[in-house]
């Protein structure tokens, strides 16, 4: 079985700060990481491959340094990486991003039976890319799974939580899954090694020419949306803000709870 996983390198949002004066993102000293739900997708893909055997290909679109994410994935056990990088890919919205990813997946040999994506990224957080890759490849999609197991040679059983229900879903291959909510994603150790990550030929680089894409199909020109402007989220003041001694502050909280009949009023003694 050939499994493909789409991952993205993102700044560690927990460490990103916003310069509200200049409306820019302060990235200095911020580490790049594999997007958390992509990391979870990779962990499910590795576990599935461990059970079924086969090849695991990891793809990422981004600037040249995104190669780091592929090294990390190969060190964890992926067989090869595809770096989709080209200056004209920059500024892509999800429509243009999914086009490049889908085109690259369609060029893999053999065609993957299962494609994994993270459910959403921490930087732009649309959750669109998985379904849009599935659409372009004509694959069915199952979004938001946290577990997947083979059922037969051609079918998989996946689990997800949706609207308060735990769903078990049967999907026939080929299929695309998006992954979220894996409580403890682990990249199985010992399958890969840093040595294999850095060995020749484990990573290929494809740009616009290799993928036979026109300028109009990629990057900003291939995007349907434009970010018109960025602005700071408004700070509005709604209620009262109190400072003071902790005892007095807690009394104020209790007053609110009393007003809502959540606690009984204090009996006045003596």
């Amino acid at each position, binding site marked *: 079985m050939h499994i493909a996983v789409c991952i993205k390198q993102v700044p560690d949002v927990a460490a990103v700060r916003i310069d509200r004066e200049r409306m820019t993102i302060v990235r200095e000293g911020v580490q790049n990481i594999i997007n958390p739900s992509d990391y979870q997708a990779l962990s499910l893909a590795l576990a599935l491959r461990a059970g079924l055997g086969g090849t695991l290909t990891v793809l990422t679109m981004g600037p040249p340094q995104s190669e780091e994410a592929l090294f990390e994935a190969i060190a964890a056990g992926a067989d090869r990486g595809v770096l989709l990088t080209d200056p004209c890919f920059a500024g892509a919205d999800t429509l243009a991003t999914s086009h490049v990813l889908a085109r690259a997946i369609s060029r893999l040999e053999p065609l993957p039976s299962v494609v994994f994506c993270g459910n959403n990224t921490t930087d732009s957080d649309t959750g669109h890319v998985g379904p849009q890759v599935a659409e372009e490849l004509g694959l069915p999609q199952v979004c938001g799974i946290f577990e997947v197991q083979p059922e037969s040679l051609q079918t998989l059983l996946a689990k997800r939580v949706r609207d308060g229900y735990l769903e078990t879903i049967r999907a026939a291959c080929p299929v695309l899954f998006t992954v979220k909510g894996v409580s403890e994603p682990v990249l199985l150790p010992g399958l890969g090694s840093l040595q294999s990550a850095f060995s020749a030929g484990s990573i290929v680089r494809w740009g616009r020419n290799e993928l036979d894409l026109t300028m109009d199909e990629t990057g900003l020109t291939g995007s349907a949306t434009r970010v018109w402007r*960025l602005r700071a989220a408004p700070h509005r003041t709604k209620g009262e803000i109190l400072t003071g001694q902790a005892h007095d502050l807690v009394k104020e909280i209790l007053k609110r709870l009393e007003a809502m009949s959540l*606690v009984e009023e204090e009996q006045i003694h003596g």
Partner: protein
Amino acid sequence: MDRGTCLVWVFGDYADYFQNRVTLQLIAKGKALASELGTRVGVVVLGEDIGQYVMEYVAHGADVIYAADNNALKDYDVELFTAVAASWVEIFRPEIFLAGATAFGRELFPRIAKRLRTGLSADCVALEIDRETGAFVQTTPAFGGDLLADVVTPVMRPQMATVHPGIFRELPHDPFALAELIHPPLPNLPERKIEVVRRRKEKARRASLTDAGVVIVGGKGVGSRANFDKLFQLAELLGGEVGATRPAVNAGWAGEERLLGQTGKSVRPRLLITIGTSGALQYTAGIRGSETVIAVNRDHSAPIFGLADLGIVGDADRILSLLIEELNRRL
């Protein structure tokens, strides 16, 4: 009745109808946008035995209903619904197409947008027509929610957006409202490739967070796992549930199932006490439906105070401990 154009569409997501009011909220907002554009608002309703939902949507302001009542559409299916909705868009050419950012809406709309080669913005918190340019401006939280991005789709149509539940207010139920009902032709329907083999209610404790009357939320400012555990005591004393922000979940203080916000659950309790949370939009998107918000934070300039009914500037652990002590004494 007026049989003018109907260029603002809403996807009729009726799953969990009595809890999930986002379709009704979007009909109201869609109607306001339509009146600015000199057109009407329509709702796309796909399924089997959908009469009750059609009636509800009409009573809540829909001018036009585009309906397919068909056994093949009985259960939600992304590929089937994409095929129908996209083919209807090609027939009627709406300018705007909205859906609630529900689990299904967020899975369906990217696929429809891709098929139509048009733009889609995600989980919007505001929608408006710019008076100067006439552009349909879709506002979406960006970069972890500290910034808002105003997104436009300049050329392609329709301009599509998923919208965060609880942002807009539904119109009151009008049992005498009338609407135009259209049954457009169905395209060739694809086969169902995805089958839900089992569906059961999640463990009570997990599911009840979204229905809880009192929710206590902890963030990074709670400081430690031991402190975070006190949130559970407080929740117990007030008959509530515990939620967590992304940093608290990442720190391992609470499970993913307690995550609130954009990538987690949305809650709308009577009372929400939020402790040690700075108030990034990524989180606050999930608590906007709360009736009363009490926020405790050490930093008086924390954005969370912007949406608190009562803001307490103080040490999270100290306040938490005293509050538990006091409640224990009284109960």
